[in-house]
């Protein structure tokens, strides 16, 4: 019993931490709300040093997050962390021991900054010796790693050898696997009527040049007029070859927006035939007139020989001038009329909306206003500085739109016929969009519609699509199965 009492006495302080710990726990269980007020209050008192350090780190991080002056706070934390590293411990030790020990002069290649800071006699002596012995600069024994930062511009960034193109999508990886018939050039050949300038085939751009120059550009029928067999025949043969290449597609060429094929026919019958016919002769007269102005006496003599009145030399000159003026005016008027004709002609060409598909069915193209509005909105969201769409851009966008719908129709009809239907269904569209990688398991077509379409259309989609619902149900079933598996 006498032994037990001191034992109890010894045991008692051992128990006290538990006794101290218990009210804490009881407090947590009793009213947790008061303890959740602050993180430090909620925390149990950590027993081990590791736990204490961890909790302190957590607290510091939290305070660093929630205090406004974050940077300074972080720095202080970093300083605290530094203080705890073993290197700092060693440094403290060295500071304690330093007065009694002597500094060692380093015999290694580069005297560090520390030894310089010490500035003892020995190092000074050594430096002097070094200067005597090596008038040349000491070679570096280490790699010049620091200089690399300066020479970064010389280093080229590593480039992948495969994907040098702009779009790194799955599609671009997939492209080489696709059939030749689906490659972009074939795609373009099929739908194009030469209006895409990526080929070297020269289309309406020359028409622009002609518009600028006015007369002398020599593309339009002048060769055809001079010799009917020569230039025009060449041109026509080239054009017909091109049409033969795209034999799959039998759209009427003349119906297209800016098909170059129509140029010989249309221009022959309209304004352009007139221009070259007039221009050479008038040009000659102008030059003659200028020559006449320059070399007046012989011309006048000529006129004299013709038997005109000899005394009317100034009058003759005046008449020449008048003639010149008339000619120039005529020229100008013809140029102006051509210039006025051209845009009208173009506008008419653009307006010709109806095209004929390969099934021989006429179809309109999407109205330009819709395309323009859509493109403007999308350009704004794409972050283009000037979101305005010019006329040329709109033309090419319309072309792209036509091609897109043509491709869409082909694909959809293929799907529908494969399913043995004569009607294109929503399921075909869902299939198409999945194959286009537009929808996946993470993005449903409905989510896309919600993002891009207005609400009225959305409602119709919601009412419409049974196959998508099935698709979703399958998804949700899979999710349920997974959840069950996780539970079990």
């Amino acid at each position, binding site marked *: 019993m006498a032994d037990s009492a001191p034992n109890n006495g010894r045991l008692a302080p051992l128990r006290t931490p538990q006794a101290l710990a218990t009210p804490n726990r009881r407090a947590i269980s009793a009213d947790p709300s008061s303890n959740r007020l602050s993180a430090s209050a909620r925390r149990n008192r950590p027993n081990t040093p590791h736990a204490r350090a961890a909790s302190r780190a957590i607290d510091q991080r939290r305070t660093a997050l929630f205090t406004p002056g974050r940077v300074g706070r972080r720095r202080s934390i970093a300083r605290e962390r530094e203080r705890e590293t073993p290197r700092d411990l060693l440094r403290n030790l060295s500071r304690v021991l330093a007065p009694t020990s002597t500094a060692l002069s380093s015999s290694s290649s580069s005297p560090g900054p520390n030894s310089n800071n010490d500035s003892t006699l020995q190092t000074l002596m050594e430096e002097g010796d070094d200067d005597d012995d090596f008038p040349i600069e000491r070679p570096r024994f280490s790699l010049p790693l620091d200089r690399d930062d300066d020479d970064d511009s010389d280093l080229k960034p590593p480039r992948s050898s495969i994907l040098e193109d702009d779009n790194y999508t799955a599609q671009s990886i997939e492209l080489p696997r*696709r059939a030749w018939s689906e490659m*972009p050039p074939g795609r373009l050949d099929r739908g194009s009527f030469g209006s895409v300038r990526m080929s070297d085939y020269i289309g309406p751009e020359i028409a622009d040049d002609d518009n600028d120059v006015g007369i002398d550009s020599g593309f339009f029928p002048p060769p055809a007029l001079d010799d009917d067999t020569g230039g025009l025949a060449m041109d026509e043969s080239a054009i017909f070859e091109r049409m033969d290449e795209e034999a799959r597609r039998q759209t009427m060429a003349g119906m297209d927006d800016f098909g170059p094929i129509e140029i010989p026919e249309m221009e022959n019958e309209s304004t352009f035939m007139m221009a070259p016919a007039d221009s050479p002769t008038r040009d000659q007269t102008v030059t003659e007139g200028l020559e006449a102005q320059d070399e007046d006496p012989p011309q006048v003599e000529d006129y004299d020989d013709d038997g005109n009145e000899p005394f009317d030399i100034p009058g003759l000159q005046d008449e020449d001038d008048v003639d010149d003026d008339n000619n120039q005016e005529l020229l100008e008027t013809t140029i102006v009329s051509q210039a006025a004709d051209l845009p009208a002609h173009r506008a008419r060409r653009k307006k010709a909306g109806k095209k004929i598909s390969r099934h021989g069915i006429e179809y309109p193209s999407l109205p330009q206003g819709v395309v323009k509005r859509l493109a403007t909105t999308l350009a704004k969201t794409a972050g283009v500085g000037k979101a305005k769409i010019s006329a*040329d851009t709109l033309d090419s966008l319309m072309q792209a739109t036509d091609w897109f*719908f043509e491709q869409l129709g082909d694909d959809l009809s293929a799907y529908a016929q494969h399913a043995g239907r004569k009607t294109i*269904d929503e399921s075909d569209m869902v299939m198409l969009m999945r194959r286009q990688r537009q929808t996946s398991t993470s993005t449903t077509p409905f989510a896309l519609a919600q993002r891009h379409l207005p609400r009225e259309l959305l409602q119709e989609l919601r009412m419409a699509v049974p196959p998508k619902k099935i698709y979703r149900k399958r998804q949700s079933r899979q999710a349920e199965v997974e959840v069950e598996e996780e539970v079990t």
Partner: protein
Amino acid sequence: MAPGQKMYPRATVKKIVKAHSKCNVSKNADVMMFLDYVLFMQTLVKEAAIDAKQSGERGISARSVKKATADTLAKFKG
């Protein structure tokens, strides 16, 4: 798209696809078609904007659109 605007001519889209496919188009499939078209235009405009930016233009030029058209069409080949 601002609300209240007429989004697009549904009949026209239907007519276009019908002409190209020689199939009938079911009642609400054209909404999905137009959705696909919007996605196509989005991709096209984005690519064209990237191309324009690379060649240092402001805004989108016809040239950059034409350049981007081939890629984008290939991307939307079903």
